[in-house]
Every structure is written in structure tokens, then in C-alpha cells.
């Protein structure tokens, strides 16, 4: 394995691992403050227990997210020093703002976790609001920095030297808006479906306890709304990609020929040698319409890009198909749940719908991973689109397969432990409902 490939895999594993925990760190605090707010209104101990149970899970996920995020901030220099030595100042603004947002998040999650008996309930709830807001903001800032790698602005490159650096312009780059909207919705969508699936599984396994029903009633509205919004945001994103990164769009679509009335290519397998996409369904003119708003608009095909400026087509195309497919499945599931509620069918009593929720549960996170593969692999061979190639950015350090193996092994281990611990938390019987005679007040210091 070449050192470049090892570095790219190392980065991909580190990002792909961290993003799962980052999504949980963005979305779970929102769910918790909704549930805690319900408790403040109703004083129903089940609502409090649900909040605390989500909180335990979040504490585990947040800690792993914090350490894996630290790894990423170092890896920028460990793996891509030649990129950071000029790009650092240009994209520094969102990174430093992210630092502050993450700082606030870490401070207030400490208060939220350990402060139950130390601050008044209102203050506690507001701490949760700060965690939810700063978690969302730190995600937005990091994605802004990534958007700059897709649409680099705010500097000039003169003879290999960077001049006229404008960090604000770099932060407000053309892709920033579409990427942050798409990623933020994705975080809530993916985690809401994941959590719904887990609670549905608990009900299917015979739990009649209200804690899981309450969870579903909080999560379904969030899941349904984000599932409807996400395709709209995706359409906006695709139009932006079509405008700024035509090679990425062509790779996403497996679209080879430059043509008007370009068809939307669904499924199939791109063959990069033969320069064609086989076994796909083609819907005439739809790609032209979706990318540029007119059925007769011209869409540039991959053949019009030099071979050494094309991203890996098969990976990008397949990942894009997976992401869209997962999104549509979640959209259908969310709408179906809304209909069931309108027909006054309690979700928790509709066993086939619970099974569907379990089935759909991992699709949101799968879509997040696939979407990041589209963004990152679709940008190749560039690390900064049109400015610097990934191969020119990698560290000269040899033997990069060793840190890759170490990170992969550690993250595999952490992943297994997290799943085991979460499973135990989720399927534990409700303490409040098991002993309804005397609802236990938590001992001081317990979280």
C-alpha cells in the first residue's frame, strides 16, 4: 500500500468514525432538552428517566466524539502538513469559531451531566439548550471549513505563494451554505431514526413500558420533518455542485457524455476503463432539469475532463445512489408514521411499523457515511479543488500503514465497546415503572 493511500484511508477512517459520534453530539442534546422540557411541564417521572437514559448514552458518545475529534485536528498536520502550511490561515476562521463552540459544549455538558442536584431545574434545562446549540454550531463551522476545500476562495495563489488572504471570504465560500444545511439536517435525521429504531426494538422485545412510547412520540416529529426537508436541501446541494464542481456531479451520476437533455442515471455500475455506466435506469432530460432547472441544459460529462482530473467514478456514483436511496426510504417511513398518527393508530401498537423502524434505523447513519464519501472522494484528485492535489499534500513520513493500522484497531475496539454499553443502557428495564410505588430519587452525584 502506498503511503498516500494509507494516509487517505487513515483520514477516511478517522472522519468516518468521528462523524457518527459528532452527529449524536449534535442531535441527542436536542432530543434531551425536548424530553426534559416535557418533564418540567408534566413532572412525569418517566419523562425524566427518558432524559437521563438518553443522557447516559450521550455521555458515552460525546466522550468518544471529543477524543476522536482531537485526533482529527492533529491529523491535519500529521498527514497533510503541506496542505495545512498554506491553508491553515485561510480556513482558520471557522476552525477557531468551532473551537469556541466546542469549548462551550464541553463546559455545559459537564454541568448538564453532573449538575442535576447543583443547579435549579430551569438552569439545568438551559445548560442543555447551550449544549444543543453549541453542538449544532460546531458542526456547522467544521463543515464550513470542508466546504472551502470544495470551493476555495478568499486568497490568491501567486507562484506557489498564497497572498491576499481574506479569512471571512473563505469562510463564506460558495459551498458553505448548502453543505452546512445538508449536514445539519442529516445529523438530526440520522440520529432520530437510529433512536426510534432502538426504542421500537425494545417494544418489539416485549417491553410495555411507557418510556419507549414517550421516546417515539418525541422522535417521530423530528424524524418526519427532517426527512421531508433533506431531499429539498439535497436538491439545492446538487445544483451548487453542478455549478461549482461539474466533475464531482458527473461522477455522482456516472455521467460520461457532455449533452443536452442529459438523463438521470439511477443505479448501474460505472466502468472507468470503458467510460460508460452499465445496467442503469436512465430517465431522459431529468439530470439537466435537476442540475440546471431546464430540461435542455447542457451537463458536462466525465469524458470532457482529463483522466488525471477525474474522481474515482464507481465509488462516488455508488455512494451517491446509497445516500439517495437511504434518504428516500427514511422519507417514506416518516410520512407513513405521520399518516398512522393521523389515523389515530398508536405507533407502539402497530407491530409492522415498529419492524419497519428497526429496519430503517441504520439507514440515516449509512447515508451520512455515503454522503461524506461522495463529498470527499468526489473532490479527488484534489485536496483543495483545482488548487492543490492530495498527492502533493501528504506528509513525507514513510511507513504510514502503521498509524493507519493502529487507528483502525483502536476505533474498531471502541466501536464494539460503545455498542455493548449502549445496548445495556437501552434495554435495561425502566426503574421508575418497575417500582411505581416509590419512585426513587437519584442519589446525589448520580447522573
Amino acid at each position, binding site marked *: 500500500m502506498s503511503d498516500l493511500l494509507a494516509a487517505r484511508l487513515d483520514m477516511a477512517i478517522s472522519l468516518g468514525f468521528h462523524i457518527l459520534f459528532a452527529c449524536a453530539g449534535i442531535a441527542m442534546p436536542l432530543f434531551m432538552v425536548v424530553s426534559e422540557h416535557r418533564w418540567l411541564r408534566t413532572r412525569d417521572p418517566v419523562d425524566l428517566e427518558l432524559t437521563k437514559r438518553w443522557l447516559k448514552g450521550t455521555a458515552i458518545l460525546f466522550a468518544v466524539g471529543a477524543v476522536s475529534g482531537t485526533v482529527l485536528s492533529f491529523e491535519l*498536520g500529521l498527514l497533510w502538513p503541506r496542505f495545512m502550511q498554506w491553508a*491553515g490561515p485561510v480556513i*482558520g476562521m471557522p476552525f*477557531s*469559531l468551532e*473551537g469556541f463552540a466546542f469549548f462551550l459544549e464541553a463546559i455545559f455538558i459537564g454541568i448538564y451531566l*453532573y449538575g442535576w442536584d447543583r443547579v435549579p431545574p430551569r438552569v439545568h434545562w438551559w445548560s442543555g439548550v447551550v449544549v444543543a446549540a453549541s453542538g449544532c454550531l460546531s458542526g456547522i463551522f467544521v463543515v464550513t471549513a470542508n466546504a472551502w476545500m470544495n470551493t476555495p476562495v478568499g486568497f490568491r495563489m501567486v507562484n506557489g505563494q498564497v497572498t491576499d*488572504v481574506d479569512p471571512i471570504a473563505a469562510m463564506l465560500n460558495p459551498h458553505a451554505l448548502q453543505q452546512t444545511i445538508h449536514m445539519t439536517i442529516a445529523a438530526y435525521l440520522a440520529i432520530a431514526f437510529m433512536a426510534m429504531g432502538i426504542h421500537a426494538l425494545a417494544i418489539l422485545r416485549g417491553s410495555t413500558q411507557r418510556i419507549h412510547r414517550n421516546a417515539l412520540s418525541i422522535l417521530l416529529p423530528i424524524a418526519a420533518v427532517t426527512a421531508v426537508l433533506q431531499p429539498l436541501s439535497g436538491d439545492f446541494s446538487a445544483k451548487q455542485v453542478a455549478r461549482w464542481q461539474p466533475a464531482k456531479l458527473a461522477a455522482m451520476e456516472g455521467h460520461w457524455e457532455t449533452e443536452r437533455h442529459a438523463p438521470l442515471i439511477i443505479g448501474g455500475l460505472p466502468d472507468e476503463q470503458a467510460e460508460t455506466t452499465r445496467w442503469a435506469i436512465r430517465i431522459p432530460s431529468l439530470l439537466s432539469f435537476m442540475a440546471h432547472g431546464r430540461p435542455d441544459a447542457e451537463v458536462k460529462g466525465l469524458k470532457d475532463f482529463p483522466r488525471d482530473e477525474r474522481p474515482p467514478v464507481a465509488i462516488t456514483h455508488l455512494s451517491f445512489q446509497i445516500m439517495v436511496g437511504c434518504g428516500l426510504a427514511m422519507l417514506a417511513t416518516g410520512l407513513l408514521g405521520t399518516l398512522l398518527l393521523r389515523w389515530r393508530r398508536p405507533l407502539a401498537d402497530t407491530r409492522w411499523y415498529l419492524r419497519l423502524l428497526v429496519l430503517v434505523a441504520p439507514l440515516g447513519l449509512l447515508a451520512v457515511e455515503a454522503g461524506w464519501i461522495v463529498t470527499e472522494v468526489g473532490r479527488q484528485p484534489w485536496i483543495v479543488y483545482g488548487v492543490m492535489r492530495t498527492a502533493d499534500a501528504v506528509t513525507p513520513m514513510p511507513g504510514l500503514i502503521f498509524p493507519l493500522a493502529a487507528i483502525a484497531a483502536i476505533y474498531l475496539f471502541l466501536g464494539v465497546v460503545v455498542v455493548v454499553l449502549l445496548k445495556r*443502557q437501552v434495554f435495561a428495564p425502566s426503574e421508575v415503572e418497575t417500582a411505581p410505588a416509590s419512585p426513587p430519587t437519584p442519589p446525589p452525584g448520580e447522573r
Partner: protein
Amino acid sequence: MDYPFAIAAVILAALVLYALGGGADFGGGVWDLFASGSTAERQRALIAHAIGPIWEANHVWLILVIVLLFVCFPLAFAAIGTALHIPLTLMLIGVILRGAAFTFRTYDRRDPGTQRRWSRVFAIGSVVTPVMLGVCVGAVLSGRIGVDLATGVVATDYISEWLAPFPFALGLFALALFAYLAAVYLTMETAEPDLRRAFRARALWAAVATGVMAWVCFFLARDGAPHMHAGLAGRNWSLPFQVTTGAVALAAIAALWKERYALARLIAAGQVTLVILGWGFSQYPWLVEPDLTIRNAAAPPQVLRLMLIALAAGAVLLLPSLWFLFRLFKSARQPGRS
């Protein structure tokens, strides 16, 4: 205003706060490893109780330093990331293991076997991280990481810069210093006399270890970090500064000896502050010796100016929040709650 200098000062201040907070959290992990005697399990519980609410916030200072480094001194960040790839990766593994194992221990089964396994991982992470941090600082001070200013090409064999006596002595010094600070803090976390005495004894031993390692580092710096040695020994500010640091260290020991714990905590924090400042001053004006200085490695002035504005605005939100966090969990009102 001298932007590069101002940013460097902020980095140094962040490092001081990281040492006072995050450093002590690592020190807590060291004492988890050395928990012994009849109070061993209560020692571990006290350590977990003390660092639980704050370790994630304390940890962010390190991330802030890294971000400031790559935004404001990108050449230094690239040079350090290139030459110190191996010790930094080991440090990151320590960071991962420490944070993950601490949290897993809190939420895993309560049986002694499970708890002991996670304790071990937590403690190993808490030892590896400060040692490797010290090793990296030692390598940066050694003057062996050469950088071509025009191209940014780093002259390094990836090993000899850090695999040397001085960096590892500095790593052990950092470990001793953080363990000492943690033990002093822990005397203030409990009202139970036997636990207090246990950590008082540990603090005194760690103070001795810190003093010994300080002399070893100073001795090894003659060859291992000649610039720094000259800075520590030869400049007109250095002798009074050294004497003050030494006097403060002795005062902290005296306060511990007299069981004046609140005073000892204050003086020990002051001592650690002086040590970090002394490191910063002795290195000035270099970032990575011998080629990169605060001036020649700095990003364009408009970037630094914006960063200073962002730092000021961020501090308005951050400092009251931090104060609130520490008042809530570290005020002297409720010692001994566990």
C-alpha cells in the same frame, strides 16, 4: 500592536490553563494507577469524582492551542506534525484511551473486574499522554528540527529529534509535575482525614520527583537543548526567575507539610504557572528551533488580527462559562461529596 507576539502570548496562556486543568486530570490518572493501601478504592472514587465534570472542558485548551498554531503559525504546525509524527501519534493514542476508558468505566458494570480493567487503561492513557507531550516539547526545544523557510521542507529523520535523553527527561518531568499538581488538588477534594493524608503524602513525594527531574532536565539541556539552556542560565531575567520558581516550590511543600491545603493548592498552581512561563520565555523568540521564530512563521497580519478579535469575542462567552463550571464543582463549599 505586535500581532504575532500577542498570539504567541495567548498560546502560552492557553498552555498554562491546559497544564493547570488538563495536566491535573492526567495526574489524577497517575494516582489511579498508584492507588494503594486501605483507602485505594476510595482514592479511585475521589479521583473520578474530581475530574468527571471538568475533564472534557479542560481538554479543549489543547485543541485551542493546536488551532491557534495551524492558523497563526502554520509553518510551525506543519514542521511539528512532520518531524514528530511518531510521538504525536502515541500521544493521541493516550488521549483516546484516557478519555474513552474513563467514560466507559463510569457506565460499564460495577463489578471489580470490569472496573479494574478500565482503570488500568485509563491510567496507562494518563501516563502516556503527558510523557509524550513532554517528549514533543523537548524535541521542539532541541534545535534539531530544521525548516527551509522558502519551501517549508522539514529536515528530519522522524526519530532522532525526539528519541533522545533530553525529550524523555522532559516527558518524565511533565508527568511528575502533573501528578504533583493532581495530588495537591485532591487534598482539597475531600474532607475525610485519611484520604487527605494519603494525597498529602503523594503530593510530597511527587514534589521531590518533580524537583529531581527539573535538575535532570536542566543538566541534560546543556547538550539536548543548548538554546534553552542558554536561555535558562544566561539571560538577565533568568536567574531571578529560577530562584522565584524554586522558592515557590519550597513554599508549596511547606504549606503541604503544615497541612494548609487551600494555600498549598494556590501556591502549587502558581508554581506550575511559573514553570510553563519559564519554558515559554526560555524559548522566545523561537517556535521551532533553530529556524522558525514567532515572526518568520507567522500568518499574514490580517489573519492574526481577525483571530485576536475572535479570541476576544470568544473569551466573553467562554470565561464566565468556565467560571460557572468551576464554581459549581470546585468551590470549597462542598468538599468531600462523593
